[in-house]
């Protein structure tokens, strides 16, 4: 059965590679909240639920942010799942508005992610990282996903140019998004000749850390009334599906995709706009496969003929690879983008779509990510 929750607003605090001294994490989070509420035509006094995910808000927590924004709440949560935070918080928020625990929930994620914050984050990401990876030395997950990409290339036959077409296609979308940090043209030749980061990964395979935040407003169909809205038809999540023991070629969505589409009453071929978590191109591939979007089609041909051609619009903001990765906002970025698309508020990059799907992926425990979720959304007038 589909949910009775919907999204009525989305906002993004502008991404930047070089934050001003005053651009604190709390400031970008609040900026995103204000923009999402304005998009929904609401004021902060209308909010009675808040979900927050941030790597760098400390020592403050979600309730501190609520206090400093003057929010009086009946529902509050703090997510910790990074690139999977949007879907995991949305899963909770949907149940909260359905049960009546809250009527208007803002979900927000973001970080001031300058060079120091990024270095601290990746060095102490979790105990396994701090004890067994950082001392290698390894500063971030590039090497892990370089090896994962090697395994994926061996298993699928994909070549560098196949990943390059994804990256170039996202850059072409980014050129239409004034909020993307990298909008200049990128050719396949540029991609293939880029400086090497960790073979086979080059510069354009790795997300640029940025400062920024994203937010959405969740409410019930009853509360939304006739307002412009996007229905949440289904949201599913899985955590730690393989104990980090496998090759890491799947995202975790492969075990819940059937549940996702069955609950939504739809199938993968109904998707008309897609945002998949793109920390690396190999994970775009994994999620497209796991969501059932590729189906029986040859994989390289699907990437070229469906994705690069824009027959299936994927990561229309430019994705994190071109728009930037604002810390824990990484997963929320795709939810904001598909919400905007389905509400007809995507500007020059607007596509014709009634059904969208968003996936999140994140929290590298030792060798690859451990959290995955997906949401099917439907435009409603």
């Amino acid at each position, binding site marked *: 059965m589909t949910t009775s929750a919907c999204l009525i607003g989305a906002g993004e605090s502008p991404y930047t590679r070089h934050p001003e001294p005053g651009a604190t994490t709390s400031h970008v989070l609040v900026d995103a909240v204000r923009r999402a509420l304005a998009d929904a035509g609401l004021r902060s006094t209308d909010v009675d639920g808040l979900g927050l995910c941030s790597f760098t808000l400390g020592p403050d927590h979600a309730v501190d942010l609520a206090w400093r924004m003057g929010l009086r709440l009946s529902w509050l949560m703090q997510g910790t799942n990074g690139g999977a935070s949007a879907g995991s918080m949305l899963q909770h928020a949907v149940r909260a508005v359905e049960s009546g625990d809250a009527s208007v929930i803002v979900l927000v994620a973001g970080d001031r992610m300058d060079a120091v914050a990024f270095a601290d984050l990746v060095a102490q990401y979790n105990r396994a990282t701090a*004890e067994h990876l950082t001392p290698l030395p390894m500063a971030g997950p590039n090497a892990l996903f370089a090896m994962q990409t090697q395994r994926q290339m061996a298993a699928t036959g994909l070549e560098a140019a196949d990943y390059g077409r994804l990256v170039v296609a996202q850059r072409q979308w980014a050129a239409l998004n004034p909020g993307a940090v990298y909008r200049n043209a990128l050719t396949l030749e540029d991609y293939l000749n880029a400086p090497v980061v960790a073979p086979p990964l080059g510069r354009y395979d790795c997300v640029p850390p940025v400062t920024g935040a994203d937010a959405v407003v969740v409410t019930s169909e009853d509360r939304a009334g006739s307002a412009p809205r996007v229905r949440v038809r289904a949201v599913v999540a899985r955590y730690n599906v393989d104990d980090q023991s496998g090759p890491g070629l799947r995202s975790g969505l492969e075990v819940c995709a059937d549940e996702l589409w069955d609950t939504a009453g739809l199938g993968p071929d109904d998707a008309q706009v897609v945002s998949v978590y793109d920390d690396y191109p190999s994970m775009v591939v994994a999620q497209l496969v796991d969501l059932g979007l590729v189906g029986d089609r040859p994989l390289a041909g699907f990437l070229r003929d469906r994705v690069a051609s824009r027959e299936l619009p994927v990561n229309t903001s430019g994705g994190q690879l071109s728009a930037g990765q604002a810390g824990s906002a990484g997963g929320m970025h795709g939810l904001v983008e598909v919400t905007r698309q389905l509400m007809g508020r995507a500007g020059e990059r607007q596509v014709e779509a009634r059904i969208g799907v968003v996936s999140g992926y994140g929290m590298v425990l*030792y060798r690859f990510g451990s959290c995955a979720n997906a949401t099917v959304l439907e435009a409603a007038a």
Partner: protein
Amino acid sequence: MSVDVQVCRTCSTRWFPHRLLCPSCGGSSLAPTHEEVGVVEESTTLAGGVVVATVRVGPDVRLVARLHGAAPPGSTVPVTHDPADERRPRAHVPHPDYREKTTHE
């Protein structure tokens, strides 16, 4: 000159990094076992020349290690927690307890 892989005393499944309960059977009796060698599955090179590899020990435990010396995929290498180990090639797997252990030995 080895790596401490965890083995479940109930079902014999092995794990690294160490777990709190056995993910296979739920057992709480987990003990370290010493692995001497592993097989390089793939590797990549970071800035500064640091070579990072996936190294399989036994049938199904995969370590993330730093390679010292040439060790192409498929080759068998010694695995060690010891940062003072100077064998080449070798796969070094950092462990926070190791320096303390060597002091006591």
